[in-house]
């Protein structure tokens, strides 16, 4: 099998991801400051996690001093999809990639990195993968720094407006897919209904945000995996949601 192993091609393919990450992580930086984290804390989280949804769910737990178990289980559930992507990607890695490289590449196996590397015909090599993950990682870290700094110096009315940015991105990820896939639309609707119950219904709303996210996600996804399963032989790319 032919192996794509050009570092420059990797860099080139990574730049659009990097630009997307700059804005998402900017919003994450703002969000972290709004939640009371410091600039350094926000940047450290981005540099060690490199995942939007997980980080967004984790910040309120960290900021409010929630339980470590809650934090761990939330991350496990939200990031579970990565294990599937890692399984898939592991089969595309060419002979130039050694065991040690797998430890590093998996660290930045985001939805977009997975999607782009899956899209290559044939195997992907070591130099290509390092090129591909380099700029998105930098974009993710630097964007967080800029957002966190901005969150500390911009006037309150601008911070308020930027507070909606990360949710705007989530809307932009979900709606186009929900428009095409009825089952996704219904699954999201169910998840949102459950989320509202956990927010507004007395007693139930005492359950902390992390556990509420876990419960709503598992219930909605399980129900739809049972009533609207994927057709067999489906390609892995379909699992890649944009992060």
């Amino acid at each position, binding site marked *: 099998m032919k192996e794509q192993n050009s570092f420059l091609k990797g860099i080139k393919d990574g730049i659009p991801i990097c630009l997307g990450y700059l804005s998402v992580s900017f919003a994450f930086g703002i969000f972290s400051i709004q939640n009371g984290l410091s600039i350094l804390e926000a940047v450290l989280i981005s540099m060690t996690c490199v995942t939007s949804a997980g980080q967004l769910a984790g910040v309120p737990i960290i900021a409010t001093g929630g339980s470590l178990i809650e934090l761990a289980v939330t991350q496990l559930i939200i990031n579970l999809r990565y294990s*599937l992507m890692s*399984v898939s990607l*592991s089969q595309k890695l060419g002979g130039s990639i050694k065991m040690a490289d797998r430890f590093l590449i998996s660290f930045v196996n985001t939805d977009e990195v997975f999607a782009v590397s899956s899209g290559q015909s044939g195997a992907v090599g070591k130099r290509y993968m390092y090129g591909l993950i380099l700029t998105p990682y930098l974009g993710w870290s630097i964007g967080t720094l800029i957002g966190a700094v901005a969150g500390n110096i911009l006037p309150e009315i601008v911070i308020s407006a930027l507070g909606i940015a990360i949710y*705007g991105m989530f809307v932009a990820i979900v709606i186009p897919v929900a428009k095409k896939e009825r089952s996704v639309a219904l699954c999201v*609707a169910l998840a949102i209904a459950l989320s509202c119950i956990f927010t507004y219904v007395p007693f139930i709303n005492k359950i902390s945000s992390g556990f509420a996210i876990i419960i709503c*996600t598992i219930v909605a996804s399980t129900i739809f*995996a049972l009533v609207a399963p994927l057709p067999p032989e489906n390609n892995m790319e379909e699992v890649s949601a944009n992060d």
Partner: protein
Amino acid sequence: MTENFFVYLLVIAGVTYLVRMLPMVLIKKKITNTFIRSFLYYVPYAVLGVMTVPAIFTSTSYLISAIVGFLVACILAYLEKSLVVVAASACGAVLACELIIKYFC
């Protein structure tokens, strides 16, 4: 920054990394189980839905500006505009709304 923060950081980064690293290092076989594949297919969308609603409505200074921003985001997302365009427009709508509230209400 407290020592406590580093414990949280270790957990959030550690779990995220293990979830990605272990399968790539250990598993070489493809997952064929339809239920597991389907479950993992729905998870990202369900998570994003749960995290967005109702939290988006308290993400700005006023409920009304958040509703306007949410609607703008929904419409542009339905028209399949890019992530950045949708998010920036939602921010712009919130800002416009809050400026109106500040100076005219």
